């Protein structure tokens, strides 16, 4: 392994070495926490500016380029603005709950980063039930959103909070169910084992990532759709649907509390993207054998950036769903599909024993068909009796 790959691990051990033996594990833990918070804090700052620039470029304009060289200091400016802005608390608001809501959202999200493996033996805690811990922490954000909505005593916040609760709960189910095939095939709940399971290379040096299997591809798509809903992003940003209910549960927040909500939302997105990379895109493994020399955390970063770009790209394009469509989409389309995905994973595992030469493509197509047909039928069922295509007659 090259020195570059283990560079952060080396620094960590070096610094921890100076501390007296008794307090060494504590210092190591503090260093890891500091590392994660520094990396993902700056990644949050970077993403706000990258999102606005990419959105701009997709809309034929530049995006912020006045503050600092081509806009790079914009997050600094936003941060200062958020800190110096007056923090207005509505008179009739429930003060304590209004104050606690942003904290209740942001703190659990930081915890979720503890289990993600960012590189070869670079994960803060190696829990053997990593995924369980991740989802347990992830579900705390609903409570925070509802606290914010209820405590603002504002009609729009209440509507936004009600929507948030309905949305997050109904999308937690497909989110978790779409990860189950990965756990079954990898045989362990620990994220490091999952990444290790995807470590080997098949013909032509292509990595054996889960996404190259039919259930893996379907699982990744389901996971990403559910992740956009979990983090209130574009096609599903009903809780703060600004064209309908102003800013939903964020209406009565300003100044640093609003920045905290913003931070919490983005960190939630990063955590879910990190998990998607770990489960389906082979964590920190290189896509091809001959690319193994590059440091592992770099691969994690590239895949992470690609998924973030995908989220921004979706946000630039798609309009918002209505609440009943949103719930129908989850309960009548995503959840059944992720259940069927379990069957596909089982079929994949069962047909793994075929030895004949033509097995891999036939096996792939069989499993792909197993997921594609229900996708089509469920889609038709979701849209209901699809109305006859519109014809527009012309009067002279």
């Amino acid at each position, binding site marked *: 392994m090259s020195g570059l790959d283990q560079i952060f691990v080396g620094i960590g051990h070096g610094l921890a070495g100076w501390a007296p033996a008794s307090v060494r594990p504590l210092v190591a833990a503090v260093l890891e926490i500091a590392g994660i918070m520094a990396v993902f804090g700056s990644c949050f700052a970077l993403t706000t500016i990258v999102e606005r620039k990419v959105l701009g470029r997709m809309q*034929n*304009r530049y995006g912020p380029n006045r503050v600092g060289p081509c806009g790079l200091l914009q997050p600094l400016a936003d941060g200062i603005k958020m800190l110096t802005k007056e923090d207005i608390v509505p008179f009739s608001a429930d003060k304590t709950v209004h104050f606690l809501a942003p904290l209740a959202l942001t703190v659990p999200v930081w915890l979720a980063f503890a289990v993600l493996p960012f590189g070869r033996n670079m994960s803060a805690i190696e829990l053997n039930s990593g995924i369980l811990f991740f989802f347990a922490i992830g579900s705390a954000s609903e409570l925070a959103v509802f606290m914010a909505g209820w405590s603002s005593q504002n009609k729009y916040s209440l509507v936004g909070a009600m929507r948030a609760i309905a949305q997050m709960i109904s999308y937690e189910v497909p989110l978790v169910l779409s990860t189950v095939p990965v756990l079954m095939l990898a045989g362990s709940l620990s994220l490091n084992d999952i990444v290790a399971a995807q470590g080997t290379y098949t013909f032509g040096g292509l990595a054996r990532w889960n996404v190259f299997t039919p259930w893996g591809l379907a699982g990744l798509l389901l996971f990403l759709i559910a992740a956009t809903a979990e983090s209130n992003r574009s096609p599903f940003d009903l809780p703060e649907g600004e064209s309908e209910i102003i800013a939903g549960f964020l209406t009565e927040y300003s100044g640093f509390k609003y920045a905290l909500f913003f931070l919490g939302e983005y960190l939630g997105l990063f955590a879910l993207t990190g998990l998607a990379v770990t489960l389906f895109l082979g964590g920190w493994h290189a896509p091809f054998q001959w690319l193994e020399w590059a440091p592992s955390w770099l691969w994690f970063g590239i895949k992470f950036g690609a998924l973030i770009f995908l989220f921004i790209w979706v946000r630039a*394009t798609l309009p918002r769903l209505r609440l009943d469509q949103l719930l129908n989409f989850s309960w009548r389309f995503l959840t059944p599909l992720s259940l069927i995905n379990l069957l596909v994973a089982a079929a994949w595992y069962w047909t793994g024993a075929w030895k004949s030469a033509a097995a891999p493509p036939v096996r792939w197509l069989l499993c792909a068909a197993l997921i594609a047909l229900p996708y*089509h039928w469920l889609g038709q069922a979701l849209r209901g009796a699809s109305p006859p295509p519109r014809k527009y007659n012309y009067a002279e």
Partner: protein
Amino acid sequence: MNGAGIIKGMIETARNFAGSYHDSKRLTTVQYPEEKLAPVENARTIPFLVYDGGDAMPGLRCTACMICEKECPPQCIYIVKDQVKKPDFVGKMQMQPKVFDIDISVCMSCGICVEVCPFDAIKMDQVFELSTNDRFGGLLLNKTQLAKPNEYFNKLHKTEASEIDARRIEEKQKAEAAAAAKAAAPKPPAAPGGAK
């Protein structure tokens, strides 16, 4: 396929994203203070008074006929006539305005004063950086602030200015010819009258 429409939409935004790096049609923003759009000849923002020759006040073409004040829809022009007359470009004695104020916070740059002015004395400017920090006095422009030379008018509205200049020169020649003819004509009748 169910997601076909969405994917087609995504391809569209991707094409615009890629296009914005090489295709000028896909990146249409003009960085205002650094780059500026080419001035359009017919553009109009607020009116200004045209004066000929070097000195502003005597050179003003305006003869305080008050037509523009009557016709201005939001009534933002305010003229007070001056008793002293001054010769205009043809030599005829014309009135001149003592006070000529335009309240540009009320003016809606419609250009009707330019259309109805019989002396081509008021034209539409193209300056739009008009922000001042004084809400009351700063936006009430008086005669001296409004007066701008004819060359400036030529620079802004080239075709219109050249037509007007041509017409004025031609009128001046006709007037001088008439004056010369009148100067020549009275001698003969005076002479015979005198001779008797």
